[in-house]
């Protein structure tokens, strides 16, 4: 049962998901080529460029990771199902509400897992191009990104069942990300100000970002697994309850 429901969701979102994946891969490849060129191509003769690039390594590593959240953006199959009458039709069959909700969550897991593969390959390739070893930290960073995406996707699923409208869900998620970004930026400015006050000549913004945010986040990696599982369970039961209680028009 679940297999066919996932197949249906894939048919609905395959075009946009594929485009998002291609986009992420392209950006990753471009970043990688710049890095290789900086190491052994024409750009390597430009010391200023290389220095700037090294400073931006952190960004280069994470921009494609962030982009792969794009795969979530079009995942509005829940509102599509509700609007076209599919969910109502499912309710007239022997398919349980639990199966419907579980198929949605599982579909997200599959898409995100598929999306993390090119990101992992890119990150490892970038590390090799950079001449650094593939550290446990890199793997932890990728895993943290993966788990974070799973949390967002399950919350996205829950909100989709609550609100029914895809654009509302996207608005809420983007608002949430916007607020989180604003808080981080304010925090960053305060910190930079403190450091500047100390007149630290070796201050490196991206080193700072890594030590201040990324590493602590990676260090809570085991907790993330628990958070993911708890979020999934909560979103699953809440979605089932909402869907069961909802009267179908």
């Amino acid at each position: 049962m679940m297999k066919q429901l996932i197949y249906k969701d894939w048919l609905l979102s395959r075009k946009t998901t594929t485009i998002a994946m291609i986009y992420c891969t392209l950006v990753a490849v471009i970043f990688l080529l710049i890095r290789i060129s900086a190491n052994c191509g024409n750009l390597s003769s430009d010391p200023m460029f290389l220095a700037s690039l090294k400073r931006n390594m952190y960004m280069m590593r994470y921009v494609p990771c962030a982009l792969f959240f794009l795969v979530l953006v079009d995942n509005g199959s829940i509102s599509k199902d509700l609007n076209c009458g599919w969910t109502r039709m499912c309710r007239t069959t022997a398919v349980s509400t639990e199966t419907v909700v579980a198929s949605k969550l599982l579909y997200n897991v599959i898409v995100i897992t598929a999306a993390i593969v090119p990101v992992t390959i890119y990150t490892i390739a970038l590390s090799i191009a950079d001449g650094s070893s593939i550290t446990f930290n890199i793997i932890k960073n990728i895993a943290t990104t993966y788990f974070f995406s799973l949390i967002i996707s399950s919350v996205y699923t829950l909100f989709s069942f609550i609100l029914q409208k895809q654009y509302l869900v996207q608005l809420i998620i983007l608002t949430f990300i916007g607020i989180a970004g604003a808080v981080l930026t304010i925090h960053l400015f305060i910190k930079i100000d403190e450091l500047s006050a100390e007149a630290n000549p070796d201050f490196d913004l991206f080193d700072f970002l890594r030590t201040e945010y990324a590493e602590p986040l990676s260090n809570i990696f085991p907790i993330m697994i628990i958070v993911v599982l708890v979020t999934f369970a909560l979103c699953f039961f809440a979605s089932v309850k909402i869907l069961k209680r909802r009267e179908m028009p």
Partner: protein
Amino acid sequence: MDFQNAVEIKDLTKKYDGFTLDNISFNVPKGSIMGFIGQNGAGKTTTIRLMLNLIKKDSGSIKMLGMDNIKNEKEVKSLISAVFDELPFHEVLNADQLSVIMAGLFDQWDKNTYFNYLDRFSLPRKKQFGDFSKGMKMKLQIAAALSHGARLLIMDEATTGLDPVVRNEILDIFLEYLQDENNSILLSSHITTDLEKIADSVTFIDKGNILLSGNKDEIVESHGVIKCTNSQYKDIDPNDIISARLTDFGAEVMINNRQKSGKKYSGLTIDNTTLEEIMLFYVRRKTKEWK
């Protein structure tokens, strides 16, 4: 399957702000097709939604195929098919893909039957549903509904908005489906001509109340229309009148006990009537006289 009625509804009530489905009861005999008629907003769709447990009832009981529709929801739903006026499938899908998906929803899904119906209805397999006409969409729904061994078909305004050719084609399929005496159909519609053609029984609902329910031929035969002058109309006992349409030339009076009225008003001619006329006169029963 040991039950007499495919559907048994007893004292069913559902209250909304401004509308109440008020204690309704009716049966759909097994092996028959029942027309569920009433004007828009009469309560047909609400009743069907309650049967399918899409909305929660306030009180009453619903038995389908001999089982309680809530206690045995899974068993009931594996043996029924519901068809609505709108296609519930995504417009980017095609008929081939739908077969794979439906096989996951129904244990008894028979893709050969499904593809046979597609061929019969001349429905393309690779064309996206978004490019289907309304008639094609309805045929597709019916093909899907009849391809998993359903014993009860529930149609909610399914033939509304279709041209007469397509409607006839669909009605023929229904009659074929009823060749198996274990199969039954509840056909909700306000197109009474369709029901006149194929229904064995009818239930007439108005403003949340059941006004008539029973054998279609008996209902039609027991009613009649007296066409008379205004002075003749005044001589008719108001208790015999359902309602009367007054025109410049006289009156058309709907009566409900044709045999008795025939003897009582021997000087007047009682014409045969139709389900549509019965519906029309019953809806105005409270005002009694209308133009």
